[in-house]
């Protein structure tokens, strides 16, 4: 059996990279090891013994938890990396089944057709619901096929998406919108959480590395 010893530097890096994605953790490890070796070299050249130099170099790095807190603000966390990997489910599904693209584009058209039928029958009040359903479905299902691939278009699309979502609830509940705020909030928490995570990823990744879903 071989004993595994963790050096103070390994332990510092382990705490500083907690919850970071594998790539981010590897990047942090590389830069901290590089920094540590330079500090060690300088101290040894100045006449400090190796053990003291190592202790001083680790101490100079400061509190690993504070560093972890700052790293999580600027590098991808494991949850964000997972969202980035798996967040393009529409694109992957469509690539695997080309008929799905037609279906995703056609689904919002169905309630829209129902809206027109109801309007032609003079049922304007009742036509409101299929129209809202069409709008909401369009914002989500047709989004991957829209030409949204610049930060500016992304901002416009996101503003339109949230305006449409709020409009759907306001039109659906009318004057009772505030009364049913709890229902709206509980329905929207997943899109809000997704949007917040995407915002955080957008801040951390250069635009050149953004996948399609980050624009939406």
């Amino acid at each position, binding site marked *: 059996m071989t004993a595994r010893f963790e050096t103070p530097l390994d332990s*510092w890096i382990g705490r*500083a990279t907690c919850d970071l994605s594998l790539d981010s953790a590897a990047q*942090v490890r*590389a*830069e*901290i090891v*590089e*920094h540590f*070796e*330079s*500090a060690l070299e*300088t101290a040894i050249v100045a006449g400090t013994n190796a053990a003291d130099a190592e202790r001083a170099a680790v101490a*100079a*790095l*400061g*509190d*690993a938890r*504070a*560093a972890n807190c*700052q*790293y999580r*603000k*600027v*590098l991808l966390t494991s949850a964000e990396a997972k969202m980035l990997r798996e967040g393009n489910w529409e694109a992957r599904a469509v690539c695997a089944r080309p008929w799905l693209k037609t279906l995703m584009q056609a689904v919002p058209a169905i309630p829209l057709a129902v809206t027109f039928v109801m309007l032609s029958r003079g049922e304007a009040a009742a036509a409101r619901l299929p129209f809202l359903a069409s709008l909401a479905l369009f914002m989500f299902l047709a989004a991957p096929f829209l030409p949204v691939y610049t930060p500016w278009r992304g901002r416009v699309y996101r503003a339109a998406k949230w305006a449409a979502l709020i409009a759907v609830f306001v039109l659906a509940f009318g004057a009772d919108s505030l009364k049913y705020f709890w229902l709206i909030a509980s329905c929207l928490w997943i899109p809000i959480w997704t949007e917040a995570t995407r915002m955080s990823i957008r*801040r*951390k*990744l*250069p635009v050149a590395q953004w996948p399609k879903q980050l624009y939406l």
Partner: protein
Amino acid sequence: MNFKGTLPTLILQALAEEPSHGYRIAQRIKARSKGVLDFKEGTLYPALHKLENEGLVASYEGVEQGRTRRYYRITKSGKAVLTKDRSEWRELSRAVTLILEEA
């Protein structure tokens, strides 16, 4: 001495003098302040990543004494931000000095 919030400006200033790697940036800040500004070196890299995400610095790989290292250089927008930060700091410093000298 705690200088929270000014680290990005100090990094930009160090990089405006010449492109450098993390360890040298830390040493330069400490040496230029004659040891008064002593910060935890583990916080230097998150600050560098933040500046890089904002496009104020750019990184590249370089070799020093046979060792591959990540170097950072200030960008054009980084220089503009540094100029603005410098003038804001001078103004703030002048104002605080005025108040403290009156006391």
